């Protein structure tokens, strides 16, 4: 969508790093820090200079557009409800964004890397069910955390292996996983809600520090880690390269398949963490948790300015996207709108947000 506003070749943002003098930089990478530092240098040099200059405004412009949308929503919220601009309500919005926010971090990596993960909601469900069985709960807090994260990671790993080495299209693999993982969740839970009796686990959702729930800090920490991983490490640069042009990335010496596996593994781990947060929030595990989260997270990533085809994107944009959705829902409830009006308005706001970004994008870059 942003092709028109920023007319330049699609492989620009990620691939040039890999293209400009890739051989030495990439192949020497494993385990040796110096080449990592050498790469930004390689980027700044030669032909990559202008590309970098163009790259930064792009990310900022997208985020700016969404910030405008958020501010507009804030104005609407404040004028329509006296309860909107209160500390309590802002905390409620941030807490509501926490679970989807963490899932969206993983989804952003996968989509920038040229894939898609439709199974995130189902992974959350299976992880939440697995970590709340009577047997797991008997191991207490540590056992539950371990189970949720490892189950998420295992399903993500399986996704990645099937896509990278089984050469099945990501859309189909994760679609199949969406069905199977939810099936496993139903099988384990016998389709019943499993109430969490471990108090220390439920406290994850109720404990606050400086008036802000732990969940919000957890999301913030994961977003910061994700941002660093995406923008400040070789792993991140490889993600852009693999998504922009996998063949070029391969020729540049990137182990594309292994990298793909890692991306889905990362998404799975994010889902495992999200499952912990959601399970604590609802104080229960159930096979119907996380329903349609895949659509919520993909929508947030896309309105955040990430290219659905991969190779370009911004994590900050994705998180702003999540906040836009959560704020919309909050304003709807504050004003007691009916479900049908909510659905219509939500669709219109998504389109408006994307259009606004596009016009913003057309004006800003020099």
């Amino acid at each position, binding site marked *: 969508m942003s092709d028109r506003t920023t007319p330049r070749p699609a492989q620009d943002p990620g691939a040039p790093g890999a293209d400009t003098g890739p051989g030495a930089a990439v*192949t*020497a990478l*494993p*385990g040796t820090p110096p080449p990592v530092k050498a790469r930004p240098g390689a980027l700044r040099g030669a032909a990559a200079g202008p590309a970098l200059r163009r790259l930064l405004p792009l990310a900022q412009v997208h985020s700016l557009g969404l910030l405008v949308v958020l501010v507009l929503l804030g104005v609407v919220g404040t004028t329509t*409800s006296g*309860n909107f601009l*209160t500390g*309590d*309500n802002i905390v*409620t919005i941030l*807490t*509501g964004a926490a*679970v989807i926010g963490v899932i969206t971090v993983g989804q952003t990596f996968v989509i920038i890397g040229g894939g898609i993960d439709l199974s995130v909601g189902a992974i959350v469900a299976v992880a939440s069910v*697995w*970590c709340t*069985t*009577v*047997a*797991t709960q008997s191991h207490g807090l540590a*056992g539950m955390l371990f*189970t949720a994260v*490892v*189950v998420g990671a*295992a399903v993500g*790993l399986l996704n990645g292996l099937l896509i990278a080495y089984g050469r099945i299209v990501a859309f189909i693999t994760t679609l199949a996983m969406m069905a199977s993982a939810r099936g496993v969740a*139903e099988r*384990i*839970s*016998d*389709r*019943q*809600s*499993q*109430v969490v009796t471990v108090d220390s686990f*439920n406290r994850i*959702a*109720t404990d606050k520090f400086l008036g802000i*729930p732990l969940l919000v800090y957890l999301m913030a920490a994961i977003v910061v880690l994700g941002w660093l991983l995406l923008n400040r490490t070789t792993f991140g640069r490889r993600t852009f390269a693999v998504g922009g042009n996998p063949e070029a990335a391969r020729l540049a*010496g990137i*182990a594309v398949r292994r990298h793909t596996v890692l991306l889905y593994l990362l998404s799975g781990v994010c889902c495992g963490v999200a499952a912990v947060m*959601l399970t604590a*929030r*609802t*104080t*229960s595990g*159930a*096979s*119907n*948790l*996380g*329903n349609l989260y895949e659509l919520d997270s993909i929508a947030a990533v896309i309105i955040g300015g990430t290219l659905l085809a991969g190779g370009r994107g911004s994590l900050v944009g994705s998180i702003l996207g999540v906040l836009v959705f959560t704020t919309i*829902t*909050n304003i709807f*409830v*504050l*004003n*007691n709108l*009916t*479900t*049908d009006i909510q659905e219509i308005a939500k669709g219109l706001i998504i389109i408006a947000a994307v259009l606004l970004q596009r016009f913003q994008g057309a004006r800003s870059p020099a």
Partner: protein
Amino acid sequence: MKDSGAGSIGRRNMLFGAGALGSGLLLSACTSNSTDDGADQAGVTADRPAAGSAGTPGKHVTIGFSAPAADHGWMAAITKNAKAQAGRYTDVSFQAAEGTNDVNAQISAVQTLIDRKVDVLVVLPFDGKALTSIGAQAMDADIPVVNLDRVFDNSLAYRTWIGGDNYGMGVNAGQYIVRTLKAKGVGKPVIAEIAGIDNLDLTKQRSQGFKDALAKAGFSVSIRQAAQFTADSGQQVMSNVLQARSKLDAVWNHDDDQGIGVEAAVKQAGRSEFFMVGGAGSKHAMQQIKADSGVLKATVVYPSSMSASAITLARLIGQGKGVGDLVEQEVPTSITLFSATVTKDNVDQYLPTSFT
């Protein structure tokens, strides 16, 4: 690509493999869910001997059973209770079709049961309208159909209908709230309603009943928002509703499964100035009511034991008997179940029939 030594890769892979294997072994031990719930579930019907002449063994009856996929607590209990009830009769054999939420698949499933020439059919259709024709087909083939809960379009398609009263559920929830508020002397109460999936007919009926009951006392719903029958949607909606109304007097939540999330939201927001009424009658909700520690003070039952009653009716129809204690020679054509209001006072009576 062959840059790093094969040794280091091999070692890393082996470590990784060992780790994965270990985790797998640990986890596989963690799928068990066995508690003493099994005993409770059996209790649903065990202590309820069939009354009168109806209880004595008679002609052998084969009952075919078809219901939607058991994808939430209430529906799971429906299938379980039907099976348990059939198991209690020595003169009944029970043939259940695989549960499905696909109308086409359910039509085929019922067709198969007809072809197998079962004596009586018990059908809870995923969509009553869509399955009317197959019900009629069974009736034409002289197989009486007991229509469970979601009603067929045409009364020719079933011999007997038995099901819950969604409107009555809303009425009873409303009446309990009115009674309690009047007793407290609250004049202009702020009442919230957390509905279930909003495009379902049953949600509309529940809300209508609730509205009507409140209107009689001159009260009205101050805020009404719909969730999705899931705990996460209930949590999300309730946390926002609590922001929308800084003070509440009463809340009716349509469904106890989503209620787990609603209660969690209340606890996380640290609110307790109001009381809440649930819906459906899950075991968890009844335990909360009994403990009397949170905001949940009552729930209006949508009995999941109705499938057990449907099996009993199917057996009576198959044997040509009437319902014990009723004077009629035949099973009635329609039975609407009462939606009882469960409070701390009578919770012990209803706990055995609650679903998990």
